[in-house]
């Protein structure tokens, strides 16, 4: 199974990387943003596999984005790899603090508390001139190990960085979900009491998943901010977190590629829906979600499972 997954991931990666050379700029941008956001959704899916739905991943997404913006606009650090690493560190550090409280709650309390924390950050960003208030901050084009690129090259380079990060993350995530620690998520969802009586700490396991999800959201925020070139408090707003939940449900929790696939479908769908029906595109998304819940309760990934193309818990 691991061998097949490696081959599939490799083929998809090479295809996407090569496609980058021919894709129009708008498609390249769309894919960069979609795959970048998909990482935040993947982190959310890790939590959902343990029965925890976070409506506050926008907190770490925005933390990552604002770290990049702050480094770029206020400190003058433009290197993409430094920026992404810093974003991940800040998001995880924040989660290490918030997570101490979060791991004590489950179900709706976990969801609402996560939302509350993200709204606190939103409030701070909106009211704080140092972070650009409601206008946000412009993010300068990144440098790649000291090299600055012009616009067409920059788009492709950023796209390739996103692809590379996605490959590393997806492979690590694939190994993780098949590992005892990955399976422990199902166990926690099915029976926390038994997990404790087996001798494992549920809180510690949930805490670890929370940190990983935050780290991925931080990297996601960094990548999207670099692609868009601008950040604003909306990234911490509850609708952003809700969008991640929407995409997670759309893709399903059955495979590590599902969040990325769903994110691409969502971003493409939203782009076309808002272009062709600017006043009703939310209605279109709502109908899509209704259909997914009614006919594909395990998400788009279940279509691939039915066809025997995806076999992964």
């Amino acid at each position, binding site marked *: 199974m691991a061998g097949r997954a490696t081959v599939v991931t490799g083929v998809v990666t090479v295809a996407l990387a090569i496609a980058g050379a021919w894709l129009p700029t708008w498609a390249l941008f769309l894919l960069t943003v979609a795959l970048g956001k998909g990482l935040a959704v993947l982190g959310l899916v890790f939590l959902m596999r343990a029965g925890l739905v976070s409506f506050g991943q926008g907190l770490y997404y925005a933390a990552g984005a604002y770290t990049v913006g702050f480094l770029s606009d206020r400190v003058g650090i433009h290197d993409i790899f430094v920026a992404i690493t810093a974003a991940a560190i800040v998001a995880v550090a924040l989660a290490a603090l918030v997570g101490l409280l979060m791991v004590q709650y489950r179900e709706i309390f976990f969801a609402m508390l996560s939302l509350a924390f993200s709204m606190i950050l939103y409030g701070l960003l909106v009211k704080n001139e140092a972070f650009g208030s409601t206008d946000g901050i412009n993010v300068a084009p990144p440098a790649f190990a000291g090299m600055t690129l012009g616009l067409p090259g920059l788009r492709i380079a950023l796209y390739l960085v996103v692809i590379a990060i996605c490959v590393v993350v997806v492979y690590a995530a694939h190994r993780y979900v098949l590992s005892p620690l990955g399976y422990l998520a199902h166990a926690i969802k099915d029976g926390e*009491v038994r997990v404790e009586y087996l*001798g494992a700490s549920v809180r510690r396991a949930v805490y670890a998943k929370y940190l990983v999800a935050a780290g991925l959201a931080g990297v996601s925020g960094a990548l999207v901010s670099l692609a868009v070139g601008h950040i604003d408090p909306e990234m911490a707003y509850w609708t952003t977190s809700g969008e991640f939940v929407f995409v997670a449900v759309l893709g399903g929790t059955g495979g590590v590629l599902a969040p990325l696939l769903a994110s691409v479908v969502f971003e493409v769908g939203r782009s076309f829906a808002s272009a062709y029906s600017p006043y009703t595109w939310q209605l279109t998304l709502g109908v899509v979600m209704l259909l997914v819940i009614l006919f594909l309760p395990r998400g788009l990934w279940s279509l691939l499972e039915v066809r025997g193309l995806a076999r992964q818990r």
Partner: protein
Amino acid sequence: MSDILVTTGITRRFGAVVAAEGIDVRVAEGSMVGMIGPNGAGKTTFLNIVTGYIKPAQGTVEFRGRDITGLPPREIASLGLTRSFQIAQLFGTLTVIENVLIALGVATGRAQSWWHPLHDRAAVAEAGELLHRFTLDHLAGQRVDTLPQGARKLLDITLAMVRKPGLLLLDEPTSGVSAEEKFDVFDILVRVLRAEGTTALFIEHDMEMVARYADRVLALADGKVIARGAPKDVLGDAEVRRLVIGVED
């Protein structure tokens, strides 16, 4: 023979309800102790206190001479005191062997690994061996939420046995199991316990089972021990017959 478990003055109240009042229990190593009592006697509360699920208001719990009062369940389990549940606590969306593999992963520390696969060849062989001992090997690939009650009970006990505990506490191991399956479940259980040298304390409402499988019996009523001793003596005790069995002599 030394005592593997000693509880002294275990007391716990839930509001006005006295769930346990000064329970003193000694369990000899290698023995099979049956615990009986009417509903609300405090049997499950006693198990919950001993295994760390709830803390006693007063009293101490010693396991192998070590005070374990108030320790969390995971620490008590790692010391070698495990339990099964009245309602089997299983991972329903996973298969039987995956349940055992997770338990093995936790017991061996492999559960901390996020890189090595759960279905490691050696671990699968070990899990298969465990399932074979509990005659569950033919169900290895079956999803747990589709299992019959007897198999669920046995799997619950299997998970508790993964750590090769010194003492296993069983909360009504045959509740919900059909009359035909009950003796099979207990026969398998006793065979494994003897092979592993595991001491056991089981809560049971079926007096025939208690008489047949227990070396010693503890009778509880209203949170207190009302009788203790050999099965014949306890089951013949007039107060036990009145309060527990519901027979007036």
